[in-house]
């Protein structure tokens, strides 16, 4: 491990002054919500800790996580990749290819046994012995197991690795399986989203390298600092929701006024992510701000929750293309009709009984 440079070494080598380095430490402390007393600790860690090697593997995915990652503004992905982590293997980003790349992969695992972080983008399909995703001539699931065996921790990038995403949507023909269901003996941090926000991705890595531990995770294994609140909780259109002012159609006056997109099927109320605070593309915008509802891409199984444009979604899990209201109204209608029919028969029977008993009364 001693042969690896520290963060500080790399930064100095890149021409960053001591003054700038201290500024960076202060900003990092502020970004992570830590008190100023942590600044010297961060600086100390940066000066003494060797850079953490990262192996980044790609399974069944679309590379949108990588695309997002390299667009990070704070900190710039360049800084993360070049200064903070030692990205020893990433078949998409690295210059080497073919045998040279695979050799680097094996070498990193061998050299940093038990000390590297495994970042997984995409997931392994398990059907047909994993033949639906082949990398380096082998099923991806084998590569994943091999790389995970000696990893210190695993980052599941995006909805694919965290939950399965579109390839795991019903009926999931390739049996695409999220990472935590294949690797069960390593600490796994899920960073869901399709893709995850760039700053969230680099933020997670910064935290892990600075403190040498996983950030605090929520119940579903996501970093709490980014995934503890819903889009809805911090949405700038929330006052319109509370006021009952909704976009009723895509091109109506309310849409132009920027009213709440709830009626257009916005999934903000059921989606945990930082889009409404961190936003995208250097904080320029996020889906709701550009006039489209949230589709809930960072939620488990979001492809199987019916239309992106309904609030009361279809009951796909029962195999019926009807929503809860339609099913409920039908049930209530049938029961109501049954009750009415029963009441009618009851009344007839009662009338019948009366006419039958009437003459006998007269006789008596």
């Amino acid at each position, binding site marked *: 491990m001693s042969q690896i440079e520290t963060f500080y070494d790399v930064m100095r080598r890149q021409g960053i002054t001591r003054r700038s380095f201290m500024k960076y430490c202060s900003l990092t402390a502020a970004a992570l919500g830590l008190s100023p007393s942590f600044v010297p600790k961060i600086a100390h860690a940066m000066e003494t800790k060797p850079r953490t090697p990262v192996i980044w593997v790609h399974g069944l995915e679309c590379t949108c996580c990588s695309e997002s990652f390299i667009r990070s503004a704070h900190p710039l992905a360049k800084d993360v990749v070049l200064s903070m982590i030692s990205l020893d293997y990433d078949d998409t980003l690295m210059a080497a290819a073919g045998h040279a790349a695979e050799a680097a992969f094996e070498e990193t695992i061998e050299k940093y046994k038990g000390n590297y972080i495994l970042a997984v983008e995409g997931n392994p399909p398990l059907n047909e012995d994993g033949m639906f995703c082949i990398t380096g001539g082998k099923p991806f699931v084998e590569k994943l197991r091999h790389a995970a065996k000696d990893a210190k921790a695993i980052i599941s990038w995006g909805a694919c690795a965290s*939950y399965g995403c579109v390839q795991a949507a019903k009926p999931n023909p390739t049996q695409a399986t999220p990472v935590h269901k294949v690797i069960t003996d390593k600490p796994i941090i899920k960073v869901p989203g399709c893709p995850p926000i760039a700053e969230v991705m680099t933020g997670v890595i910064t935290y892990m390298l600075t403190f040498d531990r996983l950030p605090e995770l*929520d*119940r*579903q294994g996501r970093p*709490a600092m980014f995934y*503890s*609140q*819903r889009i809805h*909780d911090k949405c700038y259109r929330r*006052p*319109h*929701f*509370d*006021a*009952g*002012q*909704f976009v*009723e159609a895509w091109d109506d006056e*309310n849409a132009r006024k920027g*009213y709440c997109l*709830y*009626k257009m099927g916005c*999934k903000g*109320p*059921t989606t945990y992510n930082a889009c409404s605070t961190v936003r995208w593309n250097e904080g320029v915008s996020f889906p709701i701000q550009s006039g489209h509802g949230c589709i*809930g891409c960072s*939620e*488990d*199984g*979001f492809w199987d*929750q*019916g239309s992106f444009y309904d*609030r*009361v*979604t279809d*009951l796909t*899990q029962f195999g019926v293309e009807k*929503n*809860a*209201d339609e*099913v*409920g*109204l039908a*049930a*209530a209608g049938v*029961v*109501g009709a049954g*009750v009415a029919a*029963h*009441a009618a*028969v*009851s009344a007839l*029977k*009662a009338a019948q*009984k009366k006419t039958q008993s009437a003459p006998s009364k007269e006789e008596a």
Partner: protein
Amino acid sequence: MAEDTIHVPNPGVEPLPSAQLAGDATADDIESIRKRTSVFVYEWPVRLWHWVNAACILVLCVTGWFIASPLPTMNFAEATYQFVMGYIRFAHFAAAQILTVGFFARIYWAFVGNHHARQLFYVPILNKHWWQEVFFELRWYMFIEKQPKKYVGHNPLAQIAMFFFMTLGTTFMLLTGWALYAEGAGQGSLPDQVMGWLIGLVGNTQILHTYHHLGMWFIVVFMIVHIYAAIREDIMSRQSMVSTMISGHRTFKDDSPE
């Protein structure tokens, strides 16, 4: 006649002559006053719970509907001064909290109240006689039996309905409802500490919304059947139904012991 009555009338007492003046009582009416009798069934906490619960469910159904499918957009003020959706949600949450307190109070009363206060919380599936009465009630509702039986508490069919729709149905709605409320209350809040596990269990809370919605319809179906059966039996059975949940007394229309 004395052997047939469940409560022996007092033959020594003549109906007060003044009673003959009351309303338009006939001689037959006066005679039956001596025979009719009642049993005290529902203590005041049970009756109060019933009506508070009913009111809460009504509010919850209406507001719940408008939370999922909001009213048309209103523009009578700036968003700052307008709180339509906010008030609807407030009513929903307030009614839900009252319902929750009421449900726990009702469970408490099952322990300290009288025998009939417990009937809501179990189904005596091991009791052979109870099953006979279940089938008897089914036959009564299928118009096969001519004469209904007398019941002091719920009849067996009603008991099944109460248990599955109310006891289990309300429990389901409380669990899913509080989990959804925990989302808004935030992680670390009391609702989250108590019910947040359900959010983790289902993963995507859009599923919880759907189930909570189905649960509402489950209870609406019960409401239809319950109100119909209560009014029908009030008319057609041999005992009081609706007024029993007001006064607590079950009154019987005849003195036949069966």
